[in-house]
Structures are given as C-alpha cells and as structure tokens.
C-alpha cells in the first residue's frame, strides 16, 4: 500500500474529479536546520496519473510546491470502478505509486 | 521669576560643576575599565533576580538571552560589554518580578464580568 499517497477520485457526471495529497517533505534546499546546516533539496519532480494506460494528467513540480503537496484536477472518459494509477518520482530518484478506484 | 537676577551668577557656578563632573567621568571611564569582579557581582545579582522571577513563575526569555550574552562577552575577556549585559539582565529580571507582583491584582481589570 503506498503509504505516502492519498487519492480521492469521484465520478461527477462525465468528469472524474481527482484530489491527491502526498506525504513528502518537499524541501527546497534553501532552508537551514536548527544546527545551521542546509537541509538538502528533496522534492517530488514528476507526478503522473494514468487511466487505461493513457496519461490523463502529468505534474512537473519545482521546489515551490508546498510540503505534503496537494493537487486537484478532472478528466473525462472514466467510468465508476475504473482504475487510476498514480505515481511520483523525486529528485533523489525515490518513487511511490498507488492504484485507486474511481468511485 | 524672583530669583532670575541671581540666575546669571549661578550659571558660572553651574558651569564649573558641570565641567568638573565631565572631567571626572572621563577619567573614571578610562582609568578603571570594568573588571571581572564587577562583572561577576552584576551577574550574581542578575541571576538571583531571575531566580526570584522563576519562583514567581514569570521569567522573560530576554533575561536569559542577556545573561547568555554577558557570559559570552566575559569568555572573550570583554568585561565592559559583559558588565553591561549583566546589568541589562538584572533590569529585565527585576521588571519581570514587578510585572508578576503587580498583575496579582491588576488581572481583574481585564476580566469579562
């Protein structure tokens, strides 16, 4: 189970409304910790949503995206029960993914 | 207005006194820089006042900051600034004590009744 990704995908008419909250520090690399050392940049760069093997949404993120990032969008052509694959990769190469079902 | 006429005479006297004071201050300033002893007595006074504020559960964060600054300056041998910071700390600690004691009654003024 992807511990870092929370997805809510709800069909509203013909549009699937998708909200995602991801647990990630999104460190900018410009902040110092209590001891005065710079906390290195550590942020999600790309977040991809695929439905029936087609990318329905792709986010390119910089260091200005908030900690525990959130994004909301909608797309047509989905049906209740369809699967929506969500995956991210960060600047350290770490990744996580989750398959959610459209309610 | 009556003593105005005497005023002129007194001003000369005043000038002499002021002059003398200034001279002695300058001498005092340069001749005897704050010694470590001065600093230590001031530090002790500040710390005991801050301890009293602690007993009254009403210390200020800036008091501790001034104490730390005093100790830091003392470590680098700068007893003038160490003495000054210790005196600041004492003043702050005393103010926090006055605040605690006066508020014992004054808090009621703001109470919603």
């Amino acid at each position, binding site marked *: 189970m992807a511990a870092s990704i929370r997805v809510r995908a709800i069909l509203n008419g013909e549009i699937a409304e998708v909200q995602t909250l991801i647990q990630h520090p999104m460190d900018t690399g410009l902040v110092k910790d209590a001891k005065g050392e710079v906390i290195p940049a550590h942020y999600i760069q790309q977040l991809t949503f695929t439905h029936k093997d087609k990318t329905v949404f792709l986010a390119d993120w910089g260091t200005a995206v908030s900690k525990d990032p959130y994004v909301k*969008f909608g797309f047509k052509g989905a049906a209740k029960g369809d699967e929506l694959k969500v995956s991210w990769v960060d600047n350290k190469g770490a990744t996580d993914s989750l398959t959610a079902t459209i309610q | 207005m009556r003593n105005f006429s005497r005023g002129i005479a007194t001003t000369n006297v005043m000038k002499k006194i002021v002059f003398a004071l200034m001279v002695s201050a300058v001498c005092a300033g340069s001749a005897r820089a704050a010694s470590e002893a001065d600093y230590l007595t001031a530090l002790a006074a500040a710390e005991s006042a801050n301890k009293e504020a602690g007993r009254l559960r009403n210390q200020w964060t800036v008091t501790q900051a001034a104490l730390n600054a005093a100790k830091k300056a003392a470590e680098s041998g700068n007893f003038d600034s160490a003495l000054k910071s210790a005196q600041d700390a004492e003043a702050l600690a005393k103010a926090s004590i006055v605040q605690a004691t006066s508020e014992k009654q004054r808090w009621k003024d703001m109470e919603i009744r």
Partner: protein
Amino acid sequence: MTASSGPLAHRRLFLKGAGLVALIGLGNAVLHAAPVFAATNDNKYPDDAFRQKNAGDAIKALYGRDHEASDKIKLDAPEIAENGGVVPIAVTTTLPNVTSISFIVSENPFALAASYRIPEGTVPAVANRLKMAKTSNVIALVESGGKLYSATKEVKVTVGGCGG
C-alpha cells in the same frame, strides 16, 4: 557502428569497452536534442525551466514564446496568504484545447513553481498549494491552440505572530 562524434569520443570508446553502449546512446541523444520544448510533447522534466531565477527566463525556457493576458482565465488566489508555506492557488479557463497550465511566482528564488500537462479529454483546470517567499505576482499560464495566455494576481505574504 561508427562513433559519429569527435576524436575524444573515439578514445573514450576504446578505454571504456563495457561503457560502449551507454556512450553511443548518449551520443545519439545529444545529436537529437534539437531545441524541442518539453512542455508540449515527451514527458521529460523541464529541469532547465525550473532552474531559471526570473519569470521571463522561466517562461522562455518552458514555452519558448511570449504570453498575452486573457480574460478567459480565472486565477483564484488569496489577497493575503494566511501562510507563505501553504498558499492555495487554482486556475480554470474557457480557452479551447488547452495542452498545458503552469504557475509562476515572480518573487520566488526560482520563478517557475509548477507546470501541468493537460492531455486531450482532461479538464483545463488545476488547484494546488504553493510556497511563496514574499509578496509577489502569481502568473497562471495557459497554452491553448499553440498560443500562450496568462492571468496575473498579486498575493501579499508576510510572517504571522506577534514577535517572539
């Protein structure tokens, strides 16, 4: 199997032996990387655009063209951010066949905050939470029908609390 790049590459090929395939691959990529703008087709992360400091350079690096204001873009952002770390910013547009939406925070250390690819069939609207270093213009860019449109709003940002 001729190495097409200069003498240096030749020498490297013989030395590395095992690295042969990787180098050739690298050689090809370098050759084909004509000035193509990542925002529109392949899924490459627009690293260069995110490294630009000011808005103008970031937009040029990402879209390679100027933008014109459009009243068909609704940019929703607070007047005074409750906290610079979490500023809710959303955009919707009635412009036709939108392919990309991006957010610029001009006064941030790096102007480009986020960029989104909007494939066919996806609603041209995005909501997200961005960080803002200080009071700044927020620019929402919408690429529609190969042209670039924008909406701008100033968001005031300051710290909270009474002192400490």
